[in-house]
């Protein structure tokens, strides 16, 4: 996204939230949202102001079938038990298996799930500031971990976990906190875990990472990979 003036940013965000920006312009704007914190803030401004306006009519309870459909949809592509039940710290968190996960599991050959696209995940803090950018090179089978705006915690390390519904989290190592990106080569099982779950989490662990191979500290952040 090119540098644009505050005025233009305000106008674009207003048009987007109001709904009068359509089609490709809307898609382009959503792409810019991923890149610009200022644009996200401006969008949130309009979302707060407009969506707080009174409704024109009274609340109208939807028919019961809507909730049934939601339940069905969230259960639909997986087994019911796995989707809703919290089977472990992460099991529930990742229960909803996405279409892309299903494609990865069912369509791609199990022996070689790598395809020629990159995927990216941005780990953000509570105010949506990016802390790390994680890029997956599927052909090379490695992750590129880039710290964006993160300080090293005292006597601790941040550890990255690959999450997949119904399985234990798999470590992808300690995240870098200083300038510069690092590459982490993934084993076939790590890559399969990542492709199947497409979700990651960051926990706070003793220096050097979890001593047990499983999460021992608090889980601070979660994110999802999107295909570029």
């Amino acid at each position, binding site marked *: 996204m090119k540098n644009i003036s505050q005025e233009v940013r*305000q*106008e674009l965000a*207003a*048009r987007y*939230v*109001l*709904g*009068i920006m*359509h*089609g490709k312009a809307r898609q382009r704007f959503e792409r810019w949202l991923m890149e610009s914190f200022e644009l996200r*803030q401006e969008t*949130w*401004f309009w*979302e*707060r*102001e*407009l*969506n*707080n*306006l*009174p*409704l*024109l*009519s*009274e*609340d*109208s*309870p*939807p*028919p019961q*079938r*809507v*909730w049934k*459909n*939601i339940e069905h*949809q*969230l259960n639909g592509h997986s087994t019911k038990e796995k989707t*809703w039940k*919290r089977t472990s710290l992460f099991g*529930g*968190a990742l*229960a*909803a298996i996405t279409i892309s996960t299903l494609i990865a599991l069912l369509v791609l050959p199990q022996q070689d799930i790598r395809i020629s696209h990159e995927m990216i995940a941005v780990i953000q803090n*509570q*105010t*949506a500031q990016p802390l790390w950018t994680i890029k997956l090179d599927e052909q090379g089978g490695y992750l590129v971990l880039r710290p964006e705006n993160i300080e090293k915690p005292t006597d601790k390390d941040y550890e990255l976990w690959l999450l997949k519904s119904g399985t234990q989290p798999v470590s992808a190592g300690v995240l870098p906190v200083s300038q510069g990106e690092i590459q982490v080569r993934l084993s076939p099982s790590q890559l399969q875990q990542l492709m199947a779950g497409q979700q990651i989490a960051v926990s706070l662990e003793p220096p050097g990472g979890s001593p047990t191979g499983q999460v021992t500290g608090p889980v601070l952040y*979660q994110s999802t990979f999107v295909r570029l």
Partner: protein
Amino acid sequence: MDTDLTDLIARVAMRDQAAFQRLYTQTSGRLFSICRQILRDHHLAEEALQEAFIQVWHHASEYHCERGSPLTWMSAITRYRALNILRSRNPREQITDTAEAEEETATDPLDHFINGIHDRKVHYCFEALSQEQRQSVLLAFYHGYSHHEVAARLQSPLGTVKSWIRRGLSSLRRCLS
């Protein structure tokens, strides 16, 4: 109520199904009204509401206070889903002559809109707009009208309507800041 909703969303982010059902019970009435305002078709409104709650389930961990109250955040998600469905339909179908639309034309509820605003600053800012600016912005907001549809509804040239909306939004931005 908002504190409760924040708590529920935090629990939904941890994949708590019971919390999700409570969140649905507490908010679906309001969100369904938003869908009906935009889509004016009961079945499509149900579809939009369903999609909105699926989004809430998947994105609960992304909620934070800069996005407004939990209900505001969920309203935004719901509006976007409803708008998506509206835009994916044949444009000719978008302004239908359903009984609901007829009624809306006969007694324009937007005339009474300002009375419903309790926030004094927001009330003042909308009142400060010209009637045309206010009507154009509100038709787009409440019913998901495009520029063309606002122009047809207000029987005004497209360029004029675009200008009303642009200036209306710009005035609101200055006033609400």
